């Protein structure tokens, strides 16, 4: 039986103003799988990623990362296994140069200088941004920022990637490069996205979220070709499946 990387049980979350974003969310993702989290705007995708990353505390329910319960005692050690790519790369890139940003994670993990440099170079090579190493992140294009933000995760020890809209606002070539990059990674990946064509192309499974509850989880081709299901969740068939 495959190892379970992420498991949630009866997860609920409400914002301080009382708005209930997630209600009784339960699912599990096996190690090495790529799963798309789809749903209309405001259905709770980002909140769910933030809960799994330990940035928010659930109102009720539990989250398990590699079968270890995520709580105040375990959050710091479990966060080392997680890499979260924020919706806007500007939130993720804060150092003076790309190289410094990519080295940030390994340096904080206490690796020796040679290992930090090796990891950074490898991550930047994989994401094709080695040539940007000495440039300040805020002067990069949207596609370049996206690649650098992925490089910052790949340089760490993360085994599970939580990606919030990784193809958002990318031109077709950058989008294709991002998809190819993600396809080549062995990590467990949970991808919140509106890009249903990417989900169809890249993901093994899909979780459909509607108004804070899961309405379906299953193989991506099966769910993403189910028009009525997607319609009920405020979505449409992927462009490649539309007539």
């Amino acid at each position, binding site marked *: 039986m495959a190892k379970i990387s992420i498991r949630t049980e009866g997860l609920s979350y409400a914002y301080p103003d009382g708005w209930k974003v997630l209600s009784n969310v339960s699912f599990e993702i096996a190690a090495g799988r790529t799963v798309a989290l789809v749903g209309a705007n405001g259905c709770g995708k980002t909140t769910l990623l933030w809960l799994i990353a330990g*940035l928010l505390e659930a109102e009720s329910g539990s989250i398990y990362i590699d079968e270890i319960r995520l709580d105040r005692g375990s959050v710091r050690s479990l966060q080392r296994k997680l890499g*979260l790519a924020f919706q*806007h790369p500007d939130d993720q890139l804060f150092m*003076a140069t790309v190289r410094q940003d990519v080295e940030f994670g390994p*340096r*904080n993990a206490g690796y020796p200088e040679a290992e930090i440099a090796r990891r950074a170079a490898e991550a930047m090579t994989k994401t094709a941004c080695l040539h940007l190493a000495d440039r300040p992140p805020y002067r990069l294009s949207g596609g370049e920022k996206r690649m650098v933000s992925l490089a910052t995760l790949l340089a760490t020890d993360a085994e599970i990637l939580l990606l919030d809209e990784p193809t958002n606002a990318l031109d077709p070539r950058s989008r294709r490069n991002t998809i190819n990059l993600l396809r080549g990674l062995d990590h467990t990946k949970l991808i919140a996205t509106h890009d249903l064509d990417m989900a169809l192309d890249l993901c093994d499974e899909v979780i459909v979220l509607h108004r804070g509850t899961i309405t379906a989880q299953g193989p991506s081709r099966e769910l993403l070709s189910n028009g009525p299901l997607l319609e009920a969740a405020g979505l449409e068939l992927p462009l490649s499946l539309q007539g």
Partner: protein
Amino acid sequence: MVVLTKQELQFRQFEEFACISSGVHRLHPAAPLLVTLGYIITLTSYPPTAVINLLPFALFPLLLARFARIPLRPLVKSTLKVLPLLIFIGILHPFLDTEPIQIGTMTIHRGWLVFASLLIKGFLTILANFLLISILGIGGLQRAMKSLGLPPLFYQLFTMLYRYIMLLMEEIYRVLRAYELRSGRKPKLAPSEWGSLPGGILIRTYEQGLRIQHAMELRGYDPEYPYGKEQPIIVKDIFFTALWFAAFVLLRLESFHG
């Protein structure tokens, strides 16, 4: 608006200068911090009417920038932007302090000397601070504070404030640009529109700051441990610090005798 964009980029540029490789950049971060502190203390220790005696102190930023291979022009330009504030602080001196002072054959009000001294001291102090940030970057400054035994809360607050101000400037720029594009290019904000804007800007900046903090923590950042390479204090750090301190003391003693 365009001025703000340039200014924002200039501040960002300071952090880029911190990535330059030079002998000064390779020093232990405590050395430039101590030297800059010594410089500011010496400079501000001069009497309020000192003007001529302050002029040799302009050599410090010139030489340090040269050694650190940092272009001084953008730093001077940023410092000049703070000049109106210094003028605002000191402008009343020439009118309130009218005691006559004889300089050679000329007689002027004491207030003018105080005003000129304030401008020079203020300008050089701010320039020295910008230069320090350009040498150390925010991470280096944190490490310097830690190595000097300052409590973690102090440099955590300092870093937070620095990053918040940077984000705030970016957010102000974005909002003003959006306003400008949708207001028929009105040159200024109408007073009635100021009510809602500052609150929105502050909240959005706070939220982005929080997201960046999360991004840092998820990559193992612990605010108690400043980011960057650990390095020991070695002879060249002590030599650098001692040399500059000796120069400041000599200049100060010279003015006592002079």
